[in-house]
């Protein structure tokens, strides 16, 4: 039908490999050899990678200090929203038994903060954050406008709930003298975030750029006063803000806060000794039974700090080997019985 009847045998099907389903094919055959060797190789590989990962994870030094309870006074203070303008600081001393070599990063970590809540994630205005239209608050419900109808910048629930504790790490050179550990507040966000996704509205100065907008209700200061020292880190392109705006995937998450500036005493990293965190406690977590902590950590090539991947690899490798041995045993027994299947 499709072909014309130019041939006397017009209905003779084409004899092509495809049409006759005769395409050269590799038959995947799960023979004992393939399976066994496959399992063996996979096992070896997984174990190897696992061991490497574990070893590298062992090099990672990490200090985590949960200051929810340690600053309970401040927590109590913050539970009442009326006290928002009262400052509350709290100092947490700790001892670092080993030096942390290399780059050291300071994270804050929140427990039970559902930043991945669907409505929460939605509540932002990308065009506002890009500085395209400062008044665009369309997606930001319910934090669109302030009480007097002025659009909020940055609008939305994410921005409104920004982590606003200040954490300062001091190193006690000796019992009396402590110096502030120099920390960089830049380079903690994605490059694309800083230079593409977030942009201040163009204007002479920031305060005029944000004219006509209101600060988010729970912010003490407007957005253009986030970092008054460094204009490159102010407004929407404040890196703490950017980091916060990248919503975490899990209710327990840590976010990069500062990284160690390796100067003076700290060119090698953090030396062992006693330190203390000076925390300006602003962020209320006890209200929703959350917790917060501060984390000092180094990174390895694999980036992650957790042991999990290494463990997972090791366990998988071990399981694979277990399976391999089980099958080997069965195989050998069956081979003795001379069944059809196993005879290599």
């Amino acid at each position, binding site marked *: 039908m499709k072909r014309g009847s130019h041939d006397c045998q017009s209905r003779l099907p084409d004899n092509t490999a495809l049409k006759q389903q005769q395409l050269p094919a590799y038959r995947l055959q799960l023979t004992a050899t393939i399976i066994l060797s496959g399992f063996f190789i996979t096992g070896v590989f997984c174990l190897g990678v696992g061991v490497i990962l574990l070893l590298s994870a062992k090099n990672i030094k990490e200090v985590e200090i949960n200051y929810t309870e340690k600053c309970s006074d401040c927590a109590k203070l913050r539970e009442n929203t009326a006290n928002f303008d009262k400052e509350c600081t709290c100092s947490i001393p700790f001892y670092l038994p080993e030096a942390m070599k290399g780059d050291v990063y300071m994270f804050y970590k929140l427990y039970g903060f559902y930043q991945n809540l669907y409505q929460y994630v939605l509540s932002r205005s990308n065009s506002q954050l890009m500085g395209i239209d400062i008044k665009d608050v369309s997606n930001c419900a319910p934090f669109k406008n302030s009480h007097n109808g002025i659009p909020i910048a940055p609008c939305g629930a994410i921005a409104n709930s920004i982590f606003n504790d200040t954490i300062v790490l001091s190193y006690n050179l000796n019992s009396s003298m402590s110096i502030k550990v120099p920390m960089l507040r830049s380079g903690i966000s994605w490059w694309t975030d800083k230079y593409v996704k977030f942009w201040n509205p163009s204007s002479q100065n920031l305060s005029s750029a944000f004219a006509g907008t209101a600060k988010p209700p729970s912010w003490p200061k407007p957005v253009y006063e986030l970092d008054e020292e460094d204009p490159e880190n102010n407004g929407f392109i404040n890196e703490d803000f950017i980091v916060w705006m990248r919503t975490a995937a899990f209710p327990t998450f840590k976010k990069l806060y500062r990284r160690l500036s390796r100067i003076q005493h700290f060119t090698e990293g953090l030396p062992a000794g006693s330190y203390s965190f000076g925390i300006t406690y602003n962020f209320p977590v006890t209200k929703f039974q959350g917790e917060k902590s501060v984390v000092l950590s180094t990174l390895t090539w694999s980036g992650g700090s*957790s042991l999990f991947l290494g463990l997972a690899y090791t366990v998988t490798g071990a399981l694979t080997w277990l399976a391999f041995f089980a099958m080997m045993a069965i195989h050998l027994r069956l081979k003795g019985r001379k069944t059809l299947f196993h005879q290599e």
Partner: protein
Amino acid sequence: MEQEPAAAEEPGSPGARRRRRRRRREGRTRTVRSNLLPPPGAEDPGTSVAKGARRRCAGTQHLADNRLKTTKYTLLSFLPKNLFEQFHRLANVYFVFIALLNFVPAVNAFQPGLALAPVLFILAVTAFKDLWEDYSRHRSDHEINHLGCLVFSREEKQYVHRHWKEVRVGDFVRLRCNEIIPADILLLSSSDPDGLCHIETANLDGETNLKRRQVVRGFSELVSEFNPLTFTSVIECEKPNNDLTRFRGCIVHDSGKKAGLYKENLLLRGCTVRNTEAVVGIVIYAGHETKALLNNSGPRYKRSQLERQMNCDVLWCVLLLVCMSLFSAVGHGLWVQRYQEKKSLFDVPESDGTSLSPITAAVYSFLTMIIVLQVLIPISLYVSIEIVKVCQVHFINQDIELYDEETDSQLQCRALNITEDLGQIQYIFSDKTGTLTENKMVFRRCTVSGVEYSHDANARRLARYQEADSEEEEVVPRGGSLPQRGSSGSHQSVRIVHRSQSTRSHRRTGSRAEAKLASMLSKHTAFSSPMEKDITPDPKLLEKVSECGRCLAFARHQEHPLAHLSPELSDIFDFFIALTICNTVVVTSPDQPRQKVRVRFELKSPVKTIEDFLRRFTPSRLTSSCSSVGSVAATKSAHKAGSSFLSTLPNDGALLGLEERLGPPAPALASNGYSSGARGWAAECAAAREPQPEPEPEPEPHSEPQPQPGSGPEGELRYEAESPDEAALVYAARAYNCTLVDRLHDQVSVELPHLGRLTFELLHTLGFDSIRKRMSVVIRHPLTDEINVYTKGADSVVMDLLLPCSADDARGRHQKKIRSKTQNYLNLYAVEGLRTLCIAKRVLSKEEYACWLQSHLEAESALDNREELLFQSAMRLETNLHLLGATGIEDRLQDGVPETIAKLRQAGLQIWVLTGDKQETAINIAYACKLLDHNEEVITLNAESQEVCAALLDQCLHYVQSRSPHRAPKKTAGSLSMGFSPVYPPSTVTTAGPSLSLVIDGRSLAYALEKNLEDKFLFLAKQCRSVLCCRSTPLQKSMVVKLVRSKLKAMTLAIGDGANDVSMIQVADVGVGISGQEGMQAVMASDFAVPRFRYLERLLIVHGHWCYSRLANMVLYFFYKNTFYCGFSASAMIDQWYLIFFNLLFSSLPQLVTGVLDKDVPADVLLTEPQLYTSGQNREEYRPRTFWLNMADAAFQSLVCFFIPYLAYYDSDADVFTWGTPITAIALFTFLLHLGIETKTWTWLNWTACGFSILLFFTVALIYNASCATCYPPSNPYWTMQTLMGDPVFYLTCFMAPVAALLPRLFCKALQGSLFPTQLQLARQLAKRSPEKLSAPKGTFAQGHVPGEPRTEPSEQRSLRASGSFSQDCGSQASWHAQQPACSPEASGEPSVVDMGVPLREDTLLEGLSGQTPGASSRGQVVLEGCPGYSRRKPTSTSRAAPLSSIFSLPSFSSLSWISSLSLVSGLGSVLQFSRSGLQMGKRDGEFLASRPQPDQDLRGLSGQTTDCF
């Protein structure tokens, strides 16, 4: 653009339908008047007015025009109509609902527009498919609409060319020979002087014999040519209906006279005018109102079992989805409640500042979850399945193995959506005639007046046809011992040319190719393959016939020519006359297609009136009271007719009787014939008693009485018979030089050996009917001028109608003896599986005839119960018969039927044969096709009444149950072996003990199908290996199928070829029609149409299996794929784009490719190990258990895929999408790997598809993540992918998770594969294990077929096949790996035949023998079929036995083959061949019990091989 015309005609069609509906209410008749007449109201003539009138005429009558429109849509209506149809599918509604849910702001999960995309995509794909189909329909409509025909134009006063679509009701159409009829036309004029027209209805019902149509009474008498302008009559007829066999109406002339219109007056659309130069008719029904189109119902929609199961599982998925959503909604509600009072920072209150109540939040969350988790329901499942099915159907259609060269047809799938059902069939219900057999009736033997003529040469000839079908290449022109072989020689050169052109030629040649060529030459002539035509006469009988002819020729001028013959000779003479003329065969000649051979003598109608009779018989010695009245009438009528009768009336010449009255040419003929006969006789008396072709004195070219068809196609007459039996008998008579040359409605001319042409006046034909089971002709014998009745019919009827013979007189005793002898022979024929017919004769005196005629004419003219009266009249005539003889006609089994049945049975299919034939014949055919086996017990149920039937059934059941302990172990063994044992040799099943078979006749079946007995019957039938229902009606057939289908819950397949099988085909799950000789009704009703029965094997075992396993795996895979996501909050961690398009784009293609192309077991292994089919029957691949297992596995995998990234990114600063994208990637990898495990064959297409998927995913992800920083709220995945690709954790997780996810599956699979391998897995191993042996020859074959590639030598192929088949033989043994050494020589030495020396040769010889079982033909796989048969024949033989036995038999064989090759070279006579064949047969009887004697074949095969070897 293509829709333009459709759109234009759109308003017309529904309107017309509406109008038609209205008209139906108005009245039950239709009035048609000529369009050429001015309508009653129009006064002024003129072209414009005529046109207007024409339009108005059509307008007022509201009749459909002849435009064909099968398209469903128009440009305008396409969108709404198509959408409406698509929403009939619930899934679509569901998905649209979900997409629309996204527009509700409170619950939306995705961008609303985006959510609609997949649904729109699916709808668009389906719509596009529909559009394309509609367009192709439109195109074919267009083509048909623009065919041309001649329509009488009022303006031009002549016939002008018009398109079909312009033809209107009331138009006059002129059709020439071989034109296709454009509409239903009332025949008004024919160029045929009789007012006849022959049409071929092949397009309508597939029947290729010519049907006669008659000009409307009253128009046939017109002397001048019919002028449409003078046609003023009005036709009243019934409304358009779809009854092809009925048409009633009347034509009202201006004068007010009415004439009836019958089916005989109507030419149906789609038929072809044959044998008639030109006809003119008026269009009665046009376009969609024609009977052909009203009969045309589109393809049927059947739902496959798999689909039903799948729908059920989709519902489970919905349930699962609801549960998961509910779970998360409740969880969300609780969660919200927990934080409600606390005003947490992350809480997003409503705009009025209040938080949602937990319940509202839960409800919202529930809806959102449904949206997010919608992927659980496979949206693309239906579309993908549809695509896969279309591809599968395409592949099945394209399978070259299912192409039948002879009929130039391949398999057609008419139902698109039940391909996978083919893999699950449990019961096959088969028709016998035309399905198992070829429906090619071949005259096999006969008995005349008690003497049996066994026709041994004929038997050999038939055997050779059988053999030649299985033969491959070489057709050696055979020696002159069998004259008809000359024909093959003459076709030889043509065929070789033809074969060298064809790309794959060595498939079926031999007699098959001849048959094909012959059928190509003589296109459309049914029942005339060389096999049916070339009958080898029995020398004894031939001699008697010629002697009889000589005597008659000698005694011709005497008073009673027949009296000079001995009774036996006279019987023989009458016997052949009866064979020749007692039928309705139409004679045509091939050079002018379908041009009737006729020399017109005069215009005469059959005896229609008593006057007519008297007119004809006045000159005879009629003395009865009728005569005086009659003669007056006769004179009158003769006067009226004004014909030449008058002059011949007084002629009382009894001897020259008819001939002289026949008008000028006839006497000449007769005398010519006579003289030639006399001369011939004189010559032959001196010569040997060999019959020689007559010297041909006649001037006409078409009346050559040459018995040899090979003398040239011009000299060949062609017989077009309504039933194959008739043709067979006529051809048989021709073989005895008793040739039917011409048949008109009133006379039959027969060419006889020494008498020349005799013309019998045909007085009546009493047609065959199934109640009388006989037909008769009444003729006037030209030699004796007696009125003879020749009756031909079923033996049971005819034997009872014989003249009772007195026991005292010698003649009577002789007769009695003859009868009992004949009866014995009849029984013998029945045992041989031949169809028997008795031939009898009755001589009527003129008085008897006159009296009978009177009553008969009364009956004919009777108005009420005419049928009844005619029946009685026939009964009166057909009594006191004199038995002449009986014939045995063989209905040959189709090629490969026994093998196919054996295979199907091994495949676990139960085969029931439901036939209308009688019990003995059916049983014999059943034995012949190995349905019944001689060592099995046959239970025969023949009950006279309900009670007897019940009692018999109970008895049988009792018996069966008493046997059951005997059967029990076998059963358990069978079920055990299903799961655990390796591929067991088929012999273990068949030899486990004598199994039962049930034979039941129609009447008992009727009782057994009663409500109270059906369970017992079914139980009994279930115990039996085969069931044979004889004498069953179509209704019973369908009832049996329905019973099995509903009670046993089994998948049924019905196969048949005739109209009587239609009901059964429609009832069965899968209906298969054989596009055979008996018309197209069965094909029309079927889901699949195959050219031959044996294709069923491949259809079921290969394609059925593939389709089933492919679809089953695919469906499972779909469900698996879609259970993947288990988010834990209402927010999707995976980007909406990935989520939505994952199913559609990223992961669907490899799966489609696998679904279309995967072959779990290669075809040849499936064919050699049919028991693999049982996996489909037991639904091993897709059952609830596998579904849930799969779901569980999927759940595990999704957990792995979720938690490995979760834990890996836990406690890190990863954001939602940095974490979600790896999950997507992992999911994709896991899918592909999983698919990789499940895919059994990897072609480059699979690789490409997988590669494409991965590539597509990453490309899309990269582009998407780089394209726009803010464009895709709510997700904002800018640069995520790019960042991830720089992160080693990403790669580590991407490797880790799939491995961990698939580990258990692989492990379980491997364990299961080694501990409890299924048969399929073993078969796969088998295929893998012997790839060198199996695939190497296949490879060469495949390459050999590719045009342009040099073809390998046939000899080489044979040897290759030998090795292949041997590996199969080995494979079917239980411990075949021990046989490897035995196989290895062949395996290693494929291409170099010469190097192989003796071991190879013996094996090739052996193979040559075993491969020559009838079904084997040249392709590798097909030959393999024969091999299990071989191994079955020696079930006990060890691995070594086969080669050993061949070694033992080697010397004699090789010497034989030496002789044969020598003899073939030197051209020794056939004597040697015969002796050798005898020798060999003896040898083989000892060696291979089951193989059939095929002397020539073996010799040729052997000779070919020896020449190859040395």
